[in-house]
């Protein structure tokens, strides 16, 4: 039977803090984000957290729910609650600003470090580039293009924990989609940026990122692709 009250423990404070208990009414089709919102609106207005779209598009509401990083707006309480217990913490591997809000600057700076910007040559006066939808490159890019930048993969990656300078699954997935963009002309610089210890070669292929990505993207597969591309470029002397 569904309990009528949820016993929720929420992280309060910054890097140093503690879990504080709240009792939240259990509702049908309740999401974890609903629970956090209830606490802020009805129990403690000083609770800080981040959200925007509530429909799984913006990637701002990810938190650690019962030990696992998840997008909270699309996570039903019924799926994750252990009995009537819910533990909500900020994402791992990121500095905590306050309560459930993390500082995501480094996460996104690493996208830039991995040359995550599209670099084209054409202008609006040129003809459109023809990219066949069934080409191998387009299919590879499609598989990774729906990333919403929520940081769930980054928080789930053990390599990021061991090696804080590792670019992480999201940045490498972005690099992989661009590596398969035939219009992009910064391929060499990008491969240089994602090769080596801070890039794809540190990945242990544990697959936590692919397991937990709410958009079912497989950064592990993209990182394996980058390893192949960088290896080919390295033995041909194109990375020098």
């Amino acid at each position: 039977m569904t309990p009528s009250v949820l016993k929720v423990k929420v992280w309060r404070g910054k890097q140093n803090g503690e879990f504080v208990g709240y009792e939240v009414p259990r509702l049908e089709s309740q999401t974890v984000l609903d629970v956090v919102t209830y606490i802020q609106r009805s129990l403690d207005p000083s609770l800080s957290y981040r959200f925007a779209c509530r429909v799984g598009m913006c990637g701002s509401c990810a938190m650690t729910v019962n030990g696992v990083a998840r997008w909270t707006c699309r996570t039903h309480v019924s799926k994750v609650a252990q009995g009537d217990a819910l533990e909500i913490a900020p994402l791992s591997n990121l500095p905590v600003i306050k309560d459930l809000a993390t500082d995501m600057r480094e996460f996104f700076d690493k996208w830039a470090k991995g040359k995550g910007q599209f670099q084209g040559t054409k202008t609006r006066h040129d003809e459109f580039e023809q990219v066949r939808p069934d080409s191998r490159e387009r299919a590879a890019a499609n598989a990774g293009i729906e990333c919403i930048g929520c940081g769930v993969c980054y928080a789930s990656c053990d390599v990021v924990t061991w090696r804080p300078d590792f670019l992480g699954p999201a940045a490498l997935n972005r690099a992989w989609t661009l590596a398969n963009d035939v219009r992009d002309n910064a391929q060499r610089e990008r491969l240089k940026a994602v090769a080596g210890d801070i890039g794809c070669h540190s990945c242990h292929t544990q697959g936590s990122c692919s397991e937990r990505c709410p958009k079912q993207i497989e950064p592990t597969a993209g990182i394996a692709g980058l390893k192949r591309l960088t290896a080919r470029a390295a033995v041909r002397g194109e990375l020098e």
Partner: protein
Amino acid sequence: MSALNAAAITQAKAWYWQRISAMVLALCVLVHLGVIIYAVRGGLSAAEILGRTHGSFVFGTFYTIFVLACAVHVPIGFARICEEWFGLKTSAAWLIAKALGLVILVMGLRAVYGVVL
């Protein structure tokens, strides 16, 4: 070329060689196990093995390739383990790994020599 880029190129090349050697090893191990299973059906003695391998060009070539693939594959992985588990610097890790590779190469080729020639 920066030191960081040079290290990244080394990593990318090392990955390439580990991948190629892994492909060779996968094939070698299958053949190796297959031959063992086939050969021991009626019991096996040292004299029988040597009788089959002695002077055999095929056995000599096959196990030389096997040893070479091991000598390439093992040090690359071992260097990584030295870095990540034992916290060694890259240069120290590679020094130890290359020494291990040399030991595998010498001992392996010596064994091939002993069995085939």
